[in-house]
């Protein structure tokens, strides 16, 4: 079955590719399975943080000594808005609007880059206040958790810039909108993980 761009979202199967056993795009099934497994990875990191944060050596630095909630709230807002620009990029390619696709992809990458820059600034401040990865259990679990998340965001930014580059060179036609959708799924997942981290790590005392 072949559908046109005006008929909304697409899977490879619908776009005339060979049929799959599930009737769904294999790439999309793989991405959802990957995201399901990522829940376990971040679950482990968040649990470790929750377990360790109140068990540091007495007298050493604690979360309340270093956290700047207002700063992190702005970072969270930036990442949340990047999910909006990502979904607008997907909507743009699905209707064949490649100019807006590039605008929204670039906007998403810039917002993601801003988030990572904010995280690096936060790390620098914490370091200058005496919190290092080896300082205590809180420091170790905090830097590992947020560092892993930051690495995921950085990989997402690189994928977004790759998509932008492909689009500029005309190698991302409308019928390949699923590529944008897959990167979008990864990006939104990174966002939902931060929603959980922001609450459990920063806001809950």
């Amino acid at each position, binding site marked *: 079955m072949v559908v046109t761009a005006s008929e909304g979202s697409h899977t490879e199967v619908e776009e005339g590719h060979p049929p799959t056993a599930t009737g769904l795009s294999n790439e999309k099934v793989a991405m959802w399975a990957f995201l399901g497994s990522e829940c376990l990875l971040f679950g482990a990191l968040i649990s470790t943080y929750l*377990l360790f944060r109140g068990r540091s050596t007495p007298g050493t630095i604690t979360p309340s000594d270093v956290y700047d909630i207002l700063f992190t*709230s702005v970072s969270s807002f930036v990442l949340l808005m990047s999910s909006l620009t990502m979904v607008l990029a997907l909507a743009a390619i699905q209707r064949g609007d490649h100019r807006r696709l590039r605008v929204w992809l670039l906007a998403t990458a810039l917002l993601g880059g801003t988030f990572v820059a904010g995280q690096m600034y936060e790390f620098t401040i914490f370091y200058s206040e005496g919190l290092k990865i080896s300082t205590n259990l809180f420091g170790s679990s905090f830097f590992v958790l947020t560092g892993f998340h930051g690495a995921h965001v950085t990989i997402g930014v690189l994928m977004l810039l790759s998509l932008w580059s492909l689009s500029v060179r005309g190698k991302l036609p409308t019928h390949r909108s699923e590529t944008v959708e897959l990167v979008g799924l990864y990006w939104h997942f990174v966002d939902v993980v931060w929603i959980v981290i922001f609450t459990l790590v920063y*806001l809950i005392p």
Partner: protein
Amino acid sequence: MATDTGTASPDRPAPDGGAVVGGATDEAGAHHKHPTEKKYIQIALILAVITAIEVLVYYVESIEDYLVAILLTLSVIKFVIVVSYFMHLRFDSRLFRRLFILGLVLAVFVYTIVLTTFEIWKS
């Protein structure tokens, strides 16, 4: 998470009365109807408001006893909104939903047991 009966189909509008676009439903249960751009912006505004409420609640001392419950509830609402609408899990195949929920439930189950084993709830 939306149930199958609550999902939009070509013959039936989305239960939220929402604007949806797109066409077909395949045999795997995929409903290819995604929200419009206007709807996406409305959803983003809702998420921004919830985030603002979270930060506000953090600074209100009079509700300190309920802080954890309120923050967890707001966090779950944001999580479900992003996964349902931005990741299209509400509109896509049931298989995708099952794959993701399997990982999520397994993670919550396993790590709740781990944290309980280490008696974190007492500290």
